[in-house]
């Protein structure tokens, strides 16, 4: 399950953000008539098609897998939290329609209608992401029902969907999708620019992708901070695990790095920033932050994993935010530095960082919630399917996803190589010929 989700979420994030990058380039083409933007839109749209199809089939598999693995969870959660899923279904449907129209509609739709369907792919993609994260947020912040003797009573699907965590979590996830996709795409084009300086296609692609990634990267720490404040109130044990914070303190210090020693309830190595944790979690330097010791050990998540994942996410997020600042500053003040070798190398090195942060973030959320599947209500082990021999389907799904990921990566390499040959604007320093709409 975690493997499928970990896989799906990459495709889903690209499906959410990539249409916006495409729409931006498409918009510039219609406005300026420069063929480089047309080439770029087409090159990107083929990538989108591959990712969309893979995202769609992995999503279809997920909607079954949830039941295959966690039938008891789904049985109870369905009536409570089915609502965002049913809206998600609608959004997917619209997205699938829009993508069919976009990919095959070049000659059949007028330019602006065509552009709007492209944008609609992105909007419906983001909506579906928001809906499904509402469901996940409910697992972290159960609301909209009363739990009585192993049964849910007085179900209120609306309150369950708009549970206390939905705003912060969906915002954070949406930003993560834009950030991860923006930097991944920008990084690949930076690499190609290093090989072929002067390529107009890669230059424009690099700028568009990094612009979107950078805006998200600067907002992300703010949204992460809001999220953490909610976690401190509603899931204090998760927050404590993220920080490897064993003992309740006032004026708690923020820990960076370090190796938690769970048995000894302390942390080796690591840097402490005094008062920072209290401030981050509560907005007050002297506030009390609960430590793991407040909770029975049977309710502890695996501290080491959660703490490490959190460090990875924040570390990668900070690195990207620094890159984003540089990008925005250069764009505004010294555009020539944008294409400087060193900056391109930095951007190329950052290619995987956004997705690393995204996967680490999900690890924090998901592992940090353990041993609960619905926080405080149902334990993960009680939700598992009774079918014996689960390791086999697990192996099958894992193999399939690993194989698929490899195929898609291979296809992307072929796709980039072919686009390099096909579009004149990609290869050399082709001048930006104005091409008109029907060039």
């Amino acid at each position, binding site marked *: 399950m975690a493997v499928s989700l970990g896989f799906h979420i990459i495709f889903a994030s690209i499906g959410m953000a990539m249409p916006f990058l495409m729409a931006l380039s498409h918009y510039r083409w219609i406005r300026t008539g420069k063929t480089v933007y047309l080439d770029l839109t087409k090159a990107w749209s*083929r990538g989108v098609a591959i990712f969309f199809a893979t995202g769609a089939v992995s999503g279809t598999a997920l909607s079954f897998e949830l039941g295959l693995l966690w039938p008891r969870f789904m049985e109870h959660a369905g*009536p409570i939290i*089915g609502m965002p*899923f049913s809206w*998600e279904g609608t959004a997917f449907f619209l997205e*699938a329609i829009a993508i069919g129209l976009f990919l*095959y509609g070049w*000659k059949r739709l007028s330019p602006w209608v065509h552009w709007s369907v492209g944008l609609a792919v992105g909007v419906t993609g983001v909506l579906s992401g928001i809906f499904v994260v509402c469901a996940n947020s409910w697992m972290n912040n159960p609301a909209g029902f009363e739990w009585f003797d192993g049964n849910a009573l007085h179900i209120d699907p609306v309150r369950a969907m708009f549970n206390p965590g939905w705003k912060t979590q969906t915002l954070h996830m949406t930003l993560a999708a834009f950030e991860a996709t923006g930097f991944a795409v920008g990084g690949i084009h930076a690499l190609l620019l290093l090989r072929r300086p002067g390529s107009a296609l890669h230059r424009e692609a690099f700028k568009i992708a990094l612009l979107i990634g950078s805006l998200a990267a600067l907002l992300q720490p703010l949204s992460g901070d809001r999220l953490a404040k909610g976690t401190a109130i509603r899931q204090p044990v998760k927050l404590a695990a993220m920080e490897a914070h064993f003992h309740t303190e006032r004026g708690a210090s923020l820990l960076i790095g370090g190796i938690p020693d769970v048995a000894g309830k302390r942390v080796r190595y690591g840097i402490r920033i005094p008062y920072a944790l209290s401030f981050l979690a509560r907005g007050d330097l002297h506030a009390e932050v609960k430590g793991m010791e407040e909770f029975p050990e049977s309710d502890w998540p695996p501290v080491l994993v959660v703490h490490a994942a959190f460090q990875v996410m924040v570390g990668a997020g900070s690195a990207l935010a620094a890159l984003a600042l540089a990008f925005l500053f250069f764009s505004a003040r010294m555009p020539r530095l944008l294409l400087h070798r060193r900056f391109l190398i930095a951007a190329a090195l950052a290619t995987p960082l956004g997705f690393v942060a995204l996967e680490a973030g999900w690890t924090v959320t998901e592992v940090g919630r353990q041993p609960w599947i619905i926080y405080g209500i149902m334990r993960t082990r009680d939700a598992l399917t009774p079918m014996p021999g689960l390791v086999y*389907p697990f192996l099958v799904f894992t193999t399939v996803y690993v194989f698929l990921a490899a195929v898609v990566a291979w*296809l992307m390499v072929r796709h980039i190589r072919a686009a390099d040959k096909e579009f004149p604007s990609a290869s050399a320093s082709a001048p930006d010929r104005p091409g008109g709409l029907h060039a």
Partner: protein
Amino acid sequence: MPEIPAGGSAMLWVVILFLGLSLLLYCLLAGADFGAGILEIFMGRDHRRTQREIIDRALGPVWEANHMWLILMVVILFMGFPLVYSKVSTYLHLPLTAMLMGIIARGCSFTFRHYDAVKGRSQRLYTLFFIYSSVWTPFWLGVVTGALVPGGVGLSRAGYLEGYVWPWLRPFPLALGAFTVSLFAFLAAVYLIGESREKIIRERFARRAYLSSAAAMVSGGLVFWAAQKDGVDLAARFMGSPASLACVAGATLIMPLIWLGLAREWGWASRVLAGAQVTLILAAWFAVQFPTLVKMADGHDLTFFNAHAPEATLDQLGIALLAGSALVLPSLFFLFSVFKSEGAGSGEQ
């Protein structure tokens, strides 16, 4: 026969209607997509390219949307009939997993075939995956559906085989799988005739349509025979309800008309007739099943009326379905009108 309680909330009926509708549209639209893949297996060497291009062009813009109906079904079951969703996915874990593998293989290979930037040897591999998963997936869909009927699922006797294998590894589900495959191939053949301009290709598809309709009739007979073997008197059940009897009669009577239509090249009329036939078959099925959703080995069958979610949930689900279809149906109509109007060629660049 389980009782149908009087009254029942209006939203429950909306939800049931949408469940039936999504199943129907999945069979009519996605079924034809699968069928196109099945037909590729039987394509002769000559004209193979043209026929494949026709299939690519016909499916390309719409296949994603066509497959959404399955997701809609899953969502409705999950939210509206959670117990059904959880029981089915527990006890039919294996055939469902098999079906999922097919869905993954098929969707990916179709897209990769089209979008792989290098059209080289890998194309043959994609095609291989595409055509065989087009048979594999509907086969398992039929098996899963069939397993809901005869002996029932559930752990009456402990044990892996009794619980997780025998409920579906028996004549009836397997025969239903074979029937589903041939029915989908038949649908595709009839739909595809209208997609080609060349006479010789149209004749090819027409021949496939005859053959697959014959295959559907043979495997349909097989379904009745297998049901008998599994202790379900399907024939008697079909005769038992006037609604299903009418549907079966209708489906049978349409057959000669379809043949006539194929011979005379009726175009759209043939498509409508073939669609109507599949609709009638499903309706007959629905009429004998209703209101049972899953037969349980312990006798406590799950029905529309005893396994539904609480009122508040059904209301939200009904609202989502109604509002969602107000958005989806016009867009879907637009999609089909852009790509499926008479004489539509490819608009892709």
